[in-house]
């Protein structure tokens, strides 16, 4: 697997700069960089970053597709997360993979955001 030294180094830097005005743009560049790396993977159709309410923040797809994916996958992820938590309250959902005939949708949830990646593996 490809290691990600750039990301860890950059994180340390940005922490030391916390509160700095240049921090915001730095963080943004880093986010862009990471997302670009995901997008560069073979067969990746699109990546969407969605906030906790299901509102898309950043996308590489067109508007209508993004809105649809964001809305539906946000609901599904919330349902999946509550399922996991209901079974064991100390557990939490870390990743959701949906395999379909045509492609695979990966959802990486966190407290405040969701990252949705759509990949067509057999491209």
């Amino acid at each position, binding site marked *: 697997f490809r290691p*990600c030294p750039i990301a860890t180094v950059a994180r340390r830097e940005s922490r030391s700069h916390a509160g700095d005005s240049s921090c915001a*743009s730095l963080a943004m560049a*880093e986010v862009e960089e990471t997302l670009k790396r*995901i997008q560069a993977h073979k*067969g990746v159709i699109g990546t969407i*970053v969605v906030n906790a309410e299901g*509102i898309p923040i950043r996308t590489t797809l067109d508007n209508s597709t993004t809105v649809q994916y964001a809305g539906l996958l946000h609901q599904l992820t919330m349902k999946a997360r509550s399922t996991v938590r209901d079974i064991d309250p100390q557990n939490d959902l870390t990743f959701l993979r949906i395999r379909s005939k045509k492609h695979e949708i990966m959802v*990486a949830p966190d407290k405040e955001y969701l*990252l949705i990646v759509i*990949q067509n593996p057999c491209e």
Partner: protein
Amino acid sequence: MLDSPKSSKSSALSAKDSVKKLKIKEETKAKGSAKGKRKQLGKKDEEVDISMASMGHPEIFPLVFTGKTQEILNCRINEDITEEKPYKLLKKEDIIQDMKTRAAVSDFHPVKKIVLEYPGEELLIVLDSEFKYGQNFYLVATEEAKESFLNPPEAEEEEADTKEGTTEEYVYKPPVRKPWVSLGSEKEIEEESVNESLRKIKYMISRVRREFGSKVKFTDRNASSVKDGYIECTSYQDKNFIIKKLEKDVGAQVIPKVKEMSTQTKWTYPRNAATQYFPREFSDEEKELCLSSEDLKEFIISVFLRVEIALQQNEIMNAFFDDWKALAEDESTFGGKSDAYLKEYQSFTDLHYLKHRTVSCVCWHPTIYGIIAVSVTERLSYEERIAQSGKLLLRKSPILFWSFSDPIHPQLMLECPEDVYCFEFCPSDPNIIAGGCMNGQVVLWDISEYEEKLQNAKTGAGGSKNTAVNMPTFIQAQQSGKEPHFVRYCAVSSIEYGHKTVITDIHWLPDYFEVNRMGIAFENRIGVCVQLITCSPDCSILFWDLRAPKPTIQSSFEKAKEEKAIEAPPDVPTTFKHLDLSWRPLIKANLSKSDTSGDYSPTKISLAEEHFHYRMQDKMQYQIKPEIFGDENPYKQLRVPSAKALKILENIPTNFFVGTEDGEVIYSDWKMERESDSGRLISQKPANKYTIHDGVVRTIQRSPFFKDIILSVGGWNFAIWKEGVTSGPILQSCCSSKRYTVGHWSLSRAGVFFIGREDGNIDIWDLLEKTHEPSQTQNISISMITCIKPWIVSSKQHFLAISDNFGTLHILEISWTLSHPSSNERASVDHYFEREVKHLDYFEKRQEFRAKERRELELETQRKKTRVAGGQKSREQMEEQLNINYADFLDEEKKILTGLGLLKATDRFA
């Protein structure tokens, strides 16, 4: 006790003392009922104490029955009554009768009263043989006792039960509902209940209306100023609450639970409702803010690894690969041989147009399903042809268009100036057809007018009625008469500048490049095929450009011709009128022999860039291209663009393979070279030449799967070549018993090709199965196979068109096994070719090595020979040897002598 418990308990509302009363009452009642009999008995005891109360059985009265009484009452001892059956029921009336008749003599006299007072109808007399109670019989005086005597086992059991009852578990018996019997308790309840006895006092307090809501004025005043102006409210103990509760009367009553319930389905009024919503979205600024937040960064970093792992997993392993399916496919390819044969689908022949004619070339229509074009030529030898040349001028051989819907009538016929030996649909526009004639002319047809007709033909005979309505009248007329329409060609090349003999092969150059006069490939701006390549055994390969030449080149003579052409019949398309009879080739490439003077005579050519439009094209794809030009046919307005503007395409290979009349396979380049001294353009010398086939090369074709693999068929064998391998073919078949006439690669399986033979058989070769003989041979026709063309309709339907020398066109369906590749067929075929190349290399090296070895061996033997021969030298040799020895001796002597100074250098010869 007779009072039902329900009713006794119904006095829940009753007052305290009523319960007391009840209790007492009940007690007395119970006592009374329990001792009811004792009372009666007690009475009797007072009179005659004959009962066995003293023995604990007050209900038993011993009696003496005399023999007479026994007789009367049918209870004689040991006859009517035995010890085993000591009981006898006597009717009360009988006894009374007996007492009446015999009076005091009656044995029943002592118990007269008991008998009279007995409640039942029958009395029980028991034989007391043991004289337990002192007499021979006894009377049971109560009904209960009688019952217990008559059913003694039960009584015993009951006793046992009661004894064991203490250990047995208590079984709950639900209370049984009984009707309520009034015993007067209701009166008590009534007494206990409190009724309103006094009339209610009514008060009416009124106030004047206007005073309602009027403002109240509070003022301060001195409490002592007015009497009673101050009332103190001191706390005191309320005596009502210090009464001691001495007794409490509580009643409880069981009542069935009463519940009130109701159900009602709500009726909702159906109403049309619509909700419109739009997704919430952030504005750009908000997005920016979110994106630049530290949170998001943290999130992305934490999530990145997980996502990447998942993505890489998918890249590493295809989760959608169906192993099972792949497995099954492999099995099927090795298994069923049964359905591997070609199945006859349809065959076409025409008695009129195909009489004495043979099919020279077959082409599937690139876009319309089930349309196939066939060119026919006279089936004559050269001599016969010359002999009948005058007659032949009158009957021209057409190109026929067959449709699957009509096996008898051709759909369309293209008129040819001469017999056409090869033709091809234009890859960019299927309505343009280029053909090569017997006399060396190139012919062009434009069938755009008839496209609709061909389209309709595919719908089948049933649909022809409907389509006929929309058609122009002349076509309609033809259709009704089933007379195919003749389409005139729209252009032929000039006779002077074209080929001298029959054109044996024609190809369209691909639409992405074009060549100039130097043979250098340029980009093709229009994206439409405009150039043709033809080859003929007259030792030349010609390139043709469809576009109108620059007007300056046109001579007045040609102009005149053009004018003439305009006057041509109106139904001839004017698409290529600018070319008619004046069309000259762009390049003329010769294949000169390298060793001797003279040229090769090519019959078939295969370019590096070739079309395989044997597949149903996407309709869309086909329709998009003409749109660039609008509705007009692009071929009507083609002009040669200025060469300067075009970009040279370096990566277009200009090499080609050519098969010749003499069975050679030649690899060459069409790029022209300038001769160093004269500056004239000459074509390059062929790079490689191999003589493999022992007859005319009939087919030379690139594999649709591998660009560098070429199949050549000619004479009695075929060969497979790899571009770049110069030492020879990578596979060469042995000579077959019958001549091979044609060959074609399979379009769907990389290792399969079909070869037609002169005896009408088709050899199907599967390189993965065997390479020394065809995997199967199938007879198609009785005459020579002239052309094979496969076509893929859909993934399920693959056709093979095979034409024979008698002009019949057979359409065969390729079976599943022959049309569907196994999972990694391409790779294994590629591997096979690679192995063959290696084998070839090895073979070559080995040959060199062997040659060297042989040479060495020869030298060795030579040397040996000389050594062995030393003992028996010939006389001459011996003499020679002696002379040499003598000369040596003389030299030696001279040296010594000069060394000694005895001899001077000149002396010897002096």
